[in-house]
């Protein structure tokens, strides 16, 4: 067999690669560009890449789940410099109000000139942490408890209720999980992960991840956290994995001796979907200020359930009195949050006193 076709083929490939490299050097070289963040920090970069890639290169970890493919819409950043019109790939994630406010997706904005951006101050403090899996335990048939121990001696300075992003090994993708442990345990973090059918990260955690594995996380993120200066009575409502941030908040309250009256409503379908039950009941026994109200929406006959029955919002409707001087922390799926908002505002709770985290 003659080798000529093969040589020709390779020659064509090499020629194409050379042409592309030369073209890239000649056509898309934007020289040095400066990225100024919040008017304080300035980074000098070689232009031509996306804003998000420069953030990552400079260890600024803004939320981003999809690895820059414009499918998650998390990397919203306020761009003060004119960088052209909104791209069709961004339009689905940016509301008209956000658009007029200069919000863009960092993964879609190419840096071609000097650029000025703004994002919440706390994001500048987010970092990358290398951890090792200390424990993986099944809590229910589809929820696992994960304990990650930081490899270095430092600690994650987070507020109870915030979340971290879990880097899926072998990809550039991340998934967000609320921290389920209290801040005093900052050298280790606990997560609660539900198996999402077909979900990349949850499948990895449920099927492959084992004790001793190394995991990279970034964070902490989120403006859903315990307002520690408040003394108002607390109503916490969660469903499924919404348990995680509420558990972190309760851990914090427990560390402070449960200074505020708190009631925690947790909704599940049947008894097999309840978890951390003993821990929470024990907390309620030790602190008269705290009440735990689990509720089942579809209890099975074998559950022999004697507690509250119904959707969690119906239970809240029955059990919560005047809400005008209370504060609420909600975490769960969108319909649960929407229904809870209706119920709580109906009880006289002010909208600014209802904090929530949707997933």
């Amino acid at each position, binding site marked *: 067999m003659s080798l000529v076709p093969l040589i020709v083929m390779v020659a064509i490939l090499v020629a194409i690669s050379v042409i592309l490299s030369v073209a890239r050097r000649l056509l898309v070289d934007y020289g040095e560009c400066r990225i100024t963040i919040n008017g304080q920090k300035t980074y000098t970069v070689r232009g031509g890449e996306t804003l998000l890639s420069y953030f990552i290169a400079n260890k600024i970890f803004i939320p981003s789940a999809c690895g820059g493919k414009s499918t998650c819409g998390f990397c919203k950043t306020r761009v003060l410099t004119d960088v*052209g019109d909104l791209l069709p790939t961004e339009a689905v994630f940016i509301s008209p109000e956000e658009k007029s406010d200069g919000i863009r997706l960092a993964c879609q904005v190419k840096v071609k000139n000097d650029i000025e951006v703004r994002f919440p101050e706390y994001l500048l403090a987010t970092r990358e942490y290398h951890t090792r899996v200390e424990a993986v335990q099944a809590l229910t048939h589809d929820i696992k408890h994960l304990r990650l121990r930081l490899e270095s001696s430092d600690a994650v300075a987070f507020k109870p209720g915030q979340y971290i992003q879990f880097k899926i090994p072998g990809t550039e993708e991340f998934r967000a999980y609320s921290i389920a442990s209290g801040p005093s345990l900052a050298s280790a973090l606990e997560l609660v992960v539900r198996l999402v059918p077909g979900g990349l990260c949850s499948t990895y955690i449920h099927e492959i991840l084992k004790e001793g594995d190394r995991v990279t996380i970034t964070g902490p993120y989120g403006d859903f956290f315990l307002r520690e200066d408040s003394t108002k009575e607390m109503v916490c409502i969660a469903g499924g994995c919404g348990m995680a941030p509420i558990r972190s908040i309760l851990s914090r309250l427990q560390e402070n001796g449960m200074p505020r009256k708190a009631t925690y409503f947790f909704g599940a379908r049947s008894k097999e979907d309840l978890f951390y039950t003993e821990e929470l009941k024990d907390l309620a026994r030790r602190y008269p200020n705290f009440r735990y109200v689990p509720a089942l929406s579809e209890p099975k006959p074998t559950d022999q359930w004697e507690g509250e029955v119904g959707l969690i919002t119906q239970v809240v409707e029955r059990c919560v009195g005047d809400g005008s001087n209370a504060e609420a922390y909600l975490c769960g799926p969108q319909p649960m949050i929407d229904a809870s908002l209706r119920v709580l505002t109906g009880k006289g709770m002010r909208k600014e006193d209802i904090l929530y985290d949707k997933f």
Partner: protein
Amino acid sequence: MGEMITILLAAIFTHNIALTYLLGWCPIISLSRSLKTSFGMGICVMIVMTLTAVVNWPIYYLILVPAKAEFFSYVVFTITIAATVQLLEMFLEKFFPSLQTLFGVFLPLIAANSIVLVIALFMVLRNYSYAKTIFFAFGSAAGWTLAIVTVSAIRAKLVLISDVPNGLKGGGITLVTAGVMALAFLGFAGMLGIQ
């Protein structure tokens, strides 16, 4: 010249690449929701298809055939298409940034589309000359643009005047619309013929 015009018109009407050969349907179904987007995609396809035909013909006939390496043509065509699209993207970014903003998102989609590859394959199968290949590529792209823009216009109208059953909304009704359009295009058959 007459033959060139025949190929051009046949590629648009009687041998429409989307409606006769059922190629390039993925973008028609997903992008025809908006007339503006359809038109933008159509213009991009016209540029990319003509440009890749301009590049692929000499590569095939001047390099692959003399080297008896025709069996590599699929791989080479695919790579040339991807490289051409990348070059075009860089060129637009440098010299026409506003056009790049407008068309930039469509270009990578086109690189992976069957219609661009099929032009190179038909060019070989039908033994077209260089000029014929360019007319055929431009005509096919114009025909595809005609198909996506028409489907898009019909969809825009359907939203206003019809009550599409839930199960048929989106892709379903688009395929039905396209089927009816393909039947309508059969009316052109016999007017022009190409080998």
